[in-house]
């Protein structure tokens, strides 16, 4: 069939994900899924409930949720994230 989708093995994505996770997080920027405002991670508001919640400083919607399990981190990222790949220092 000529309409075959050109997907790769998920390991290709995993390599990209690894690169992203190695980026400096505080300077990453996020575009809110809710209000479209663009802010650095460090400008967001962090709340410590049962787990950690990061919220958009403009509209208050959830930007990320993290629960730290004994041997895992359960993470939900929301919105569009921009990571700088030129690493510091």
């Amino acid at each position: 069939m000529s309409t075959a989708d050109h997907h790769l093995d998920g390991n290709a994505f995993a390599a990209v994900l690894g690169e992203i996770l190695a980026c400096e997080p505080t300077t990453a920027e996020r575009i809110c899924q809710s209000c479209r405002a663009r802010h650095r991670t460090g400008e967001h508001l962090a709340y410590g409930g049962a787990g950690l919640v990061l919220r958009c400083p403009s509209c208050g919607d959830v930007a990320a949720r993290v629960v730290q399990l004994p041997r895992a981190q359960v993470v939900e990222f929301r919105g569009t994230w921009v990571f700088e790949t030129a690493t510091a220092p």
Partner: protein
Amino acid sequence: MTPVSRGFHGRRRSDVDAARVPPGQYVVDDFPVLSAGPTPHPELDQWSFTINGAVDEARSWSWAAFLELPSETFTVDIHCVTKWSKLGTIWTGVSVDQLLEDVETSAEFVTAFSDGGYTTNLPLGDVTDGQAWVAYAFDGEPLEPEHGGPARLLVPHLYFWKSAKWVRGLTLTAEDEPGFWESNGYHNRGDPWKEERYWSD
């Protein structure tokens, strides 16, 4: 490999009844404030409490009508998943049994929903038979906003994230629908005596 920190015991104490403290918990005297978002300050004349979802007919109470409902004052121990427990806390509120009186439903689960968008799910069997309340006073005083006022759910036999602050209603559901924390790593039921903290427990 995690090294043990010499002389570090955490907030463990010897002056409390160990039988009342679930595994892994320590007892506090203060009332820590943990919150997944900013504290809402709803106008009481705009406030309502709603029972909806898989019910014969949705019910709703205004703040004034809610205060008219038969209330109970009760003393319970509370246990937060972040490991603090507070013993002998005194609350006043309306039992969920009272709120569900006359409600016809075949639902087996409830989702509590709150101002600010927080939700938590529970089996119906965990909020009935005198096990849960919607509380509006703590220690004889109106419940402060930072502790969930004007009203919060109180389900003391489960970890405290199930006791939704700023609760505005219960949605009865046929299927179990994981809430804010239950869908992101925390245990679906959260029994402190079984240390049901995380998905992995």
